[in-house]
């Protein structure tokens, strides 16, 4: 599989480390909402089809990426820096 890093360009999947589901959202640090924490830490949907995933380009620019990938065909429809996606979410824009 090839992931097209927005900085480094297309690279083999061996340069990347899977860092989990990118659809989860972390509660506010001081939150006591245990259900929300539980959902963040443990609950993972296992959808067929398109999925947002974190991948760390550990063997390249060391940026976390949000990769939108169809898990049944492995087709990748978008790759963006996680930092940009996170900033977009924080400022209320769709990621």
């Amino acid at each position, binding site marked *: 599989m090839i992931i097209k890093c927005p900085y480094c360009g297309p690279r083999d999947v061996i340069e990347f480390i899977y860092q989990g589901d990118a659809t989860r959202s972390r509660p506010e640090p001081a939150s006591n909402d245990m259900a929300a924490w539980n959902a963040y830490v443990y609950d993972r949907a296992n959808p067929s089809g398109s999925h947002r995933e974190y991948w760390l380009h550990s*063997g390249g*620019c060391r940026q976390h990426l949000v990769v939108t990938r169809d898990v049944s065909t492995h087709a990748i429809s978008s790759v963006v*820096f996680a*930092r940009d996606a996170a900033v977009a979410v924080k400022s209320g824009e769709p990621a």
Partner: protein
Amino acid sequence: MAEPQSPLGASYVPGDHGNAAAGIGVTLRERKGLSIIQVTAWSEAIPAMLTAIGSATGLALQNKPGLGRVAGEKSVFGFAPGRYLVVSATPELETRLRSVIAPDLGTIIDLTHGRTVIRISGPRSEWVLSKLFAIDFSEHAFAIGNGRATLHHDIHANIQRIDDETFDVYVFRTFARSFWATLGHAAEEVGYRVE
């Protein structure tokens, strides 16, 4: 002050190796005596940082992924967003960079002791490097002066293209001897010379 010790030790053996009888495909050498400074810009300050690097080194860059420039012993290249290696044979490099890079531009860290620089040159350098790294070394994909971050198995490397058949490979010091052995092994087929 004493010379820093090379991590390559006894594995650095000058002379001709491998299938050298059929010609020298590549020449390998360790570049020593360099200052290797990593500069990282805050994301909004990348253009200002590039200007600052340009004023300290005379090597001005555009803000595009992986761009770099080389002038003699001096070089600079990007390998991650806002992150550059600035390299020079002058020990004052860090001081000069600090004098032009204010904290609101970004941060500076001296990696001189943490990186070993191996220069590979010769007509078969693309071929030999392609055995180890899964990146496209052809000149149209990897232009002179530009940089890359990649890895060979567990060994991270920054690679800068110096000219059409010369590359500098920056590896982490503690992996350097292992990498040197692997590189020599890969070069045996084409014959190699250690300077």
